[in-house]
């Protein structure tokens, strides 16, 4: 048994840590959020140079190997910095989906540009009525000779305003929740009929609602086999869940650390508040939650990399997301409470970690959803 990081993983962690301590303090992050794109292109170039954009891909796709544990190591550090660069939507979600579905030249060119830092992507999958179910797709794609006509509305399209290309999940056949009949199409956001409404999310990340009204693309825009994309989508989402769960571990550990530090300096009743046992025990509980969250993410990431069957992998992913969700509630709320009034202000970073934690709890299924999914498998 050995839970220590490999040399590569250690280097990856060190390189993110070094970048963050040099380039990503709270003020810098706030300025990045206020910029039009909501991320730093300079940082993105640097991520490419440092090889971070290759992490989720196999060696044959030009990646670092595609291990979930590698991704976990990096995302945890991103969480500690509360990083807003669109790594998850562009690289993890879209990159991995391309790697699963695309073939030949399309795959090679897109992944090449992506890992080189020259391509921004966004996944248009969620819909108003889909909640967390990937197979609930009301957006339609109808064949019309050699072209495809797409109609529907997508929500929560992370990085939608920056994307050079959109990966659009649409239904070619079957009923609204059928597993069969779902395809993914590459759609340029400048195509007539695409309306993008963009905004900033609670966690400072850019997102969009996108309407597709009679959007016509060539049949060659379909990635993979007609109507058979669901399995790939679910596989990619499972990987993304490892990514956001690991990020949450970073967020929570930072909240714990900041809370403990604050309790050692904030004085009330003639002493630092960290001497009050009522608060000490709660911080001890926060620490325990962080340890459990980290442990279950390690379990799930290792299982995803291992030889377990698909059901076992999916169960592990749901276990991680639901358990981390529970830890998010506890740790993030206590961090704010122990900070007191200053914890709910915009001027302190704690509130922003709290908001990121809240978003991470929702993304790809909240605690109740994953407990249910775990129980159903």
């Amino acid at each position, binding site marked *: 048994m050995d839970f220590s990081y490999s040399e590569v993983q250690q280097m990856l962690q060190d390189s993110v840590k070094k970048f963050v301590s040099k380039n990503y303090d709270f003020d810098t992050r706030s300025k990045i959020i206020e910029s039009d794109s909501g991320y730093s292109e300079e940082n993105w170039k640097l991520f490419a140079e440092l090889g971070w954009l290759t992490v989720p891909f196999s060696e044959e796709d030009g990646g670092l190997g595609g291990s979930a544990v590698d991704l976990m190591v990096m995302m945890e550090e991103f969480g500690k910095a509360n990083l807003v660069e669109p790594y998850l939507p562009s690289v993890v979600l879209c990159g991995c989906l391309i790697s699963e579905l695309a073939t030949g030249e399309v795959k090679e060119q897109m992944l090449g540009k992506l890992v080189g830092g020259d391509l921004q992507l966004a996944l248009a999958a969620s819909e108003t009525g889909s909640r967390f179910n990937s197979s609930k797709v009301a957006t339609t794609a109808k064949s019309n000779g050699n072209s495809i006509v797409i109609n529907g509305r997508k929500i929560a399209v992370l990085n939608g305003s920056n994307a050079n290309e959109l990966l659009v999940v649409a239904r070619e056949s079957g009923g609204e929740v059928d597993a069969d009949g779902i395809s993914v199409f590459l759609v340029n956001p400048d195509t007539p009929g695409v309306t993008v409404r963009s905004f900033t*999310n609670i966690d400072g990340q850019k997102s969009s609602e996108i309407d597709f009204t009679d959007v016509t693309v060539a049949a060659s825009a379909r990635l993979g086999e007609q109507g058979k994309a669901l399995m790939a989508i679910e596989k990619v989402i499972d990987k993304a869940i490892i990514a956001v769960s690991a990020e949450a571990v970073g967020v929570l550990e930072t909240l714990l650390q900041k809370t403990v530090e604050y309790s050692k300096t904030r004085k009330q009743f003639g002493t630092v508040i960290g001497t009050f046992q009522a608060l000490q025990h709660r911080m001890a509980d926060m620490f325990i939650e962080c340890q459990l969250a980290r442990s279950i993410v390690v379990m799930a990431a290792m299982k995803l990399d291992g030889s377990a069957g698909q059901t076992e992998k999916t169960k592990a992913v749901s276990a991680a997301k639901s358990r981390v969700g529970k830890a998010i509630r506890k740790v993030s709320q206590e961090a704010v409470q122990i900070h*007191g009034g200053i914890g709910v202000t915009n001027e302190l970073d704690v509130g922003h970690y709290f908001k990121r934690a*809240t978003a991470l709890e929702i993304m790809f299924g909240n605690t*109740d959803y994953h407990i249910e999914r775990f129980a159903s498998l």
Partner: protein
Amino acid sequence: MKAEFTAEELDFQSEVKTFLNDEFPAEYREKVDANVRLNKDELVNWQKILFKKGWAAPSWPKEYGGTGWSQVQKYIFATEMGLIGAPEPIPFGMKMVAPIIMAYGNDEQKARFLPDILESNVWWCQGYSEPNSGSDLASLKTSAVRDGDHYIVNGAKTWNTYGQYADWIFCLVRTETTAKKQEGISFLLIDMHSPGISLKPIVLIDGHPEVNEIFFDDVRVPAENLIGEENKGWTYAKVLLTHERTGISGVPRGKKRLSSLKRIARETDDGFGSSMMENDAFKNKIAALEIDLEAIEYAELRTLASVSAGKAPGPESSILKIVGTELAQRIDEAFVELAAYHCLPFVPDQFEDGFQGDYISPGTSASAALTYFNNRKATIYGGSNEIQRNIICKAVLGL
């Protein structure tokens, strides 16, 4: 034991219902239902409507223009207001400073300040907390030094809710540096338009500048604005803290929110073709909230009955503050869970007065996270829930 209202109380209840249905402006109700904040003019106007009816100050004695209602009548009124979503009186004047002026102010002060509070001509804010004095309020440092007929005030107050609207502020200030920190504190009323006062908005994590830091730089305050005796302010403030504890549990508002939670759950797809109201986990969560709300309602009624019987409200108010705020926060969480992706967009402008433009996310779903964020304050303010638990340990359990 009897929990029913008497025939007279039932008559009163229907009178209140009718009045609120007729007089609470429809456009305000729409805003409240859309989770849009009422602006200052609207809040004041609503107070003036209540004033015209003679209902502006349910908790005041009759001699000052209050209603002279029984505890049960006050409870009925607060409940009906909460169920319809009508805002309660802005508490700073009506519920916080007025009772202190009544109890400890002189006749001149009563005549000068109380009528304007009753008619909502003047907006008050609270100057208690300081950057370094939160839960340990008695450690406050803002100083008031006597200079002839004036006090010279220097220091900073924080967490002033709606200080940007305020004409006056009631402050706890230090008039003497004594061995015991509680003993050198005085209660001073200060005109917010005085030279030397400046205000810095504090934006909360929901994006709203709801509170302020207020700085006092050699502010000259007429000595006649001192309430009661110098150095007795802490005693006055403490009395206030046990005052006006009915209605703090937020049961009516909780009921209103649970009914909209259920309505939205029925309209929300669970992603598998059913509604979220048919989702077992969510349905059970709502049921648990309803059950807790009922327990709190009866805890409040029992407190009410004992206050009606002439007993002073004691640590019960701490219980109600704790359970009321913690339940409200669980309801906030349920709204976030229900909204899911729809509450990720950070679009606070949509819930501000006069918003025009395309709405992101359906209905009020985009406000779920904003409310969740904002309301984390509830377990922190008004004596944090940690302080309330300390009170219970000391006053009830004898620890």
